[in-house]
């Protein structure tokens, strides 16, 4: 079984985001970038499948600027076998990412694609679903557990009020939620080995995709400052304050 895992280069989750003064986006100059944490979970799951003898090859794909090779190297250091960089200096919107991934899936013929459920920069939560639709494959989103039942996947997902289990036909699309696993950190020997693993370089045009943006961002702003709260003495006071604020009738 071959597993494909797309990995995105995003602002590190520890970085305090600053909005550019002209409100066109977020300031990325001299900001630490890392692999999207949900993609780390996806890679971890794929590598565990390989270690368990279920997967034979794990391929990591990143779509973005040249420095996305660093993100692929991180995936290789965690245990992926090889990488594909689809280089683009433009912002690639989720639908275009899904179209490029469809091209890669047709060329690589994986049995399973594991994506992060969303990227922490734009929080779109679209790519996995769009890819499944474009390919006409089954999809299991927000996976918190993946098991095998013969040639089918039993996928547990967290939904309101409990757990739901899906049985999916292969090939299939899975998106990883936070509790699927706890990603490993790279060991030194694996960091060294990763340097020797191959990374192919492609462009969106190789897959016949035009990455021109179809969405227009009007402006990006900081979230409003939270106002300081007040302390109430009693339940009666709480109720009257809520009524004053028009929250309850």
């Amino acid at each position, binding site marked *: 079984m071959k597993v494909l895992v797309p990995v995105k280069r995003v602002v590190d989750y520890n970085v305090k985001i600053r909005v550019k003064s002209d409100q066109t986006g977020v300031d990325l100059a001299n900001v630490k970038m*890392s692999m999207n944490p949900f993609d780390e979970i996806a890679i971890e799951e794929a590598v565990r499948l390989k270690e368990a003898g279920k997967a034979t090859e794990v391929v990591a794909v990143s779509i973005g600027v040249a*420095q996305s*090779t*660093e993100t692929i*190297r*991180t995936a290789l*250091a965690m245990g992926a076998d090889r990488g594909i960089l689809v280089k683009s200096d433009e912002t690639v919107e989720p639908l275009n990412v899904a179209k490029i991934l469809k091209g890669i899936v047709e060329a690589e013929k994986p049995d399973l694609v594991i994506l992060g459920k969303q990227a922490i920069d734009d929080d779109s939560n679209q790519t996995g679903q769009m890819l499944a639709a474009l390919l006409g494959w089954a999809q299991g989103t927000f996976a918190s557990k993946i098991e095998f039942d013969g040639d089918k996947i039993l996928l547990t997902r967290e939904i309101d009020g409990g757990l739901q289990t899906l049985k999916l036909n292969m090939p299939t699309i899975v998106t990883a939620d936070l509790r699927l696993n706890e990603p490993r*950190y*790279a*060991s*030194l*020997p*694996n*960091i*060294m080995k990763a*340097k020797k693993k191959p990374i192919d370089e492609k462009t969106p045009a190789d897959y016949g995709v035009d990455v021109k943006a179809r969405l227009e961002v009007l402006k990006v702003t900081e979230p409003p400052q939270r106002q300081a709260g007040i302390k109430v003495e009693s339940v009666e006071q709480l109720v009257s304050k809520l009524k004053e604020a028009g929250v309850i009738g």
Partner: protein
Amino acid sequence: MDFSLTPDQQQIRDAIFKLCEPFDDDYWLKKDKAGGFPEDFYKAVADQGWLGIAMPESVGGAGLGITEAALMMQAISESGGGMSGASAVHLNIFGLNPVVVFGTEDQKTRMLPPLIRGEDKACFAVTEPDAGLNTTGLKTFAERKSDRYIVRGQKIWITTAQVASKMLLLARTTPYDELTKKTDGLSLFYTDFDRSKVEVREIPKMGRSAVDSNMLFFDGLEIPVENRIGAEGKGFQQILHGLNPERILIAAEAIGLGRAALRKASAYARERVVFGRPIGQNQGIQHPLAKCWAELEAANLMTFKAASLYDNGKECGAEANAAKYLAAEAAFHACETAILTHGGMGYAKEYHVERYMRESWIPRIAPVSMQLILSFIAEKVLGQPKSY
């Protein structure tokens, strides 16, 4: 001049911080109180292959430079491990460099792989109570008896001697008054730590109680000739070879400790409200913090300049010594400032900065004192008469 880390170097820093995550403030606080070698931390570092970072690939290392090793050690210290974390693995990282440079093939394959795998722990026995910083005045004597040496004498301050299975030992093999060249006459050995022939007494000390330092009394320790590294009588020169990298690592560790202290102090200054505002809003609090940052980062530049010179095969004695001096002082100031920023809480163990403060004395004193560094720079860089 590009001062930024390469992606590989950044990856090393990130990986070490992740590795250190389970060994948090509470872990090191407990270790400091109860003592005892941080065995689980040591094992985590060894299991992930980090001990061999600067060892040749031919013996199972990663073959990276002192720059990368310094980044690793700095991250361990900066994560909150401080000198306790750093000293627990310090010797494995570069201590056996004399074996890499001067050892025979047999010695390399025998000695290095178990150290890289973390199966062997070693200690480095140089300092003696009666010689101090004057290393050529060492008295511990290794007498040749056919195919072995018999060692008698004393060492002091020997770190990790409680837990070590091996010892890198510098001892005299020719009496001082029989020498024409006074820097000759010492030899270097790497051998089993035979506790039936060496008495080890731990020294109660100010800080870093998890990593022991000891008095050693040698009473007839036997060392087979094949455990002598390089030529007899050339031990001092062999040690000199590894001194600069050692200074660079200590400097990086000290800066890591200073950064940990500054991180705690800055967080406290933002959160602690007195007179109706965060204490960090007072310049009397924020300026000392900013000054510490400037001092630490300046010391860091000197440290990585020295590392870069070393990795490129260039002379780096002045820079490595200056880096150790600047880093130790900057770390000490950062710890002092961190305590003052915390007010009374700075004196309480649960705020961690008093522990950092006690540990920050180590890089000021060892492996070489501030005075001797300044004497060295005055002589070698500024052309002053030798004063020691």
